[in-house]
């Protein structure tokens, strides 16, 4: 059974609906990536899962079922008990998420005292253990330091220590390595994946970085302008993407392991920008889509199953692929 089940989630502001009819699930111990560029609604989705939407935004419809319970129906008090204990979250910029006037120890012990009722001394011992768990050298000494004394990578490790303090079943990581240098990014991803295995935790990875997705995700949900346009395990998604937007992204991104160079030809662009989605009554990607048909401009396409675990919200490529499949088969 899925650990997290998001069904038909719609998030609305008074004059905008940035997430519409989003459904996806996360299984225990699985890494699911929610991929999209700015304006896709991926970060807002993460906040909605934890009941942390900014003021003005609300869940207009849909369910967020976690271990069988609908989180959207919980009272604030009950939701607070889930948050930090069963579901935890880390953000892109660790410095703004850590309190600059408290020691690392203070910030870690707060969580374990609140959720696990540990004594002051036991909580401090636990804080040192947690710093060690996230591979911070000299945890005994570091526990009494303040965030400004740490590098960006170390701060993100501290955020991770706080997040996993209560052994959550689900960790939501919103662009966890975007602000970090590439060698440090590799360390943090390696750490997150190790913790996922060791603590039997699922990981919901929110990112714009296709490289990170390709290496670390089991399953991928691609979002565009508030809707899911494609969902698949990482291998078919990268080998045989179906949605024109997914294909466009993969074509547009230079990849280190491939041989493409500017002297051999330009990158394949996706024309226009996501801003064009706002005025669209049909498929939000239609204004930028190379395969657009008249019907695309009038009706919003629903995700359709192209294979057991691969869905795509594009009738044009869906039909083509199935015809192709028949012809080959």
């Amino acid at each position, binding site marked *: 059974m899925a650990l997290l089940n998001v069904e038909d989630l719609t998030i609305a502001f008074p004059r905008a609906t940035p997430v519409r009819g989003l459904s996806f699930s996360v299984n225990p111990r699985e890494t699911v990536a929610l991929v999209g560029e700015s304006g896709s609604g991926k970060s807002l989705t993460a906040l909605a899962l934890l009941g942390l939407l900014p003021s003005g935004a609300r869940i207009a419809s849909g369910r967020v079922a976690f271990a069988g319970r609908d989180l959207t129906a919980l009272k604030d008090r009950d939701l607070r008990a889930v948050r930090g204990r069963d579901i935890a979250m880390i953000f892109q910029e660790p410095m703004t998420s850590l309190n600059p006037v408290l020691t690392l120890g203070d910030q870690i012990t707060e969580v374990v005292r609140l959720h696990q009722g540990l004594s002051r001394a036991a909580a401090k011992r636990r804080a040192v253990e947690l710093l060690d768990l996230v591979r911070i050298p000299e945890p005994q000494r570091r526990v009494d330091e303040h965030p400004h004394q740490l590098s960006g990578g170390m701060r993100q490790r501290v955020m991770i220590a706080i997040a996993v303090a209560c052994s959550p079943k689900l960790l939501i990581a919103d662009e966890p390595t975007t602000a970090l240098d590439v*060698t440090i990014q590799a360390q943090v*991803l390696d750490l997150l994946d190790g913790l996922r295995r060791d603590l039997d935790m699922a990981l919901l990875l929110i990112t*714009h970085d296709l490289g990170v997705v*390709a*290496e670390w995700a089991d399953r991928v949900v691609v979002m565009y302008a508030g809707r899911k346009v494609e969902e698949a395990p990482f291998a078919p998604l990268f080998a045989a993407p179906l949605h024109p937007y997914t294909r466009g992204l993969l074509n547009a991104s230079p990849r280190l392991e491939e041989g493409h160079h*500017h002297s051999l030809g330009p990158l394949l662009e996706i024309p226009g920008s996501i801003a064009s989605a706002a005025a669209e009554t049909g498929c939000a990607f239609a204004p930028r889509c190379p395969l657009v048909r008249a019907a695309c401009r009038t009706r919003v396409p629903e995700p359709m199953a192209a294979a057991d675990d691969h869905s795509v919200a594009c009738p044009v490529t869906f039909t083509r692929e199935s015809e192709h499949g028949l012809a080959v088969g």
Partner: protein
Amino acid sequence: MALLSVENLRAHYRDGGATLRAVDDVSFQIAAGETVGLVGESGCGKSTLGKTLLRLVNPTSGRILFDGQEVGGLSERALRQYRRSVQMVFQDPFASLNPRHTVAEILGGPLAVHGVGDRKSRIGQTQDALDRVGLPRDALKRYPHEFSGGQRQRLGIARALILQPRLVICDEPVSALDLSIQAQILNLLSRMKADLGLSYLFISHDLSVVRYFADRVLVMYLGRIVESGSWRSLWSRPLHPYTRALIDAVPNPTRRRHAAPLSGDLPSPRQIPSGCRFHPRCPLATARCQVEEPISRAVGDGQTVACHHADLSPIH
């Protein structure tokens, strides 16, 4: 002759009691029509190097030659001419465009400062500049906040090109942009280079982008260039352990969930390690590396490497 030639350039800052050696004995050249990529992590000095070339930061020592002329000895007037020939495109186009100026003022400003043409011809030139970067002419009356991130970077490029420079220093020009917009801007920069015969110094932390865009690559670590080479040789035969680690650290779908290549943090540029500055993180480091700084040596095919043990490392 190289368009730009940098010799033993140093840019040091006083920082409290310490000396911050942001650029520490750097030499390289850029040929006319060439794109040189400069990669490195934060604090390696790559942005300071870009600013030093424009004389926005004064070098502590060393020489910068542009077209054979030493930039350090230029008179006020000649320096102005130099800055016309060498322009810059910044990472965050919003922070580098005055929010209270219209596009006409932003693009016309450099022309007026350098006294190019009369008022009427300047308007014509600003319109041409918009055409070149794919923005509509009615953009002239609008303000930066009315544009998307990608459009603002097009404006940044239009402004950099309006004085018809010969060298453009691009400092992380696509790092703040969404993936679907990155390709548009990279292609635009490519077209501009071909159409206008430009050279670029392309500064980026993103190896995949540099892999695609640069003809030659410099790898910088804590103020120094540790390896350089043509794109073909550097990416197929990286020799310095740091270059290899950088390449290994890039997420790669063909090696699922591989271990991080380097442990430990980047040292602070305020406390540069003795000997080879990479030795505390280097898998090949020996006692020699702790005391003796390796000098850059040529290893054929235009490639250089500054490492005592580059030959020992297994072929990548």
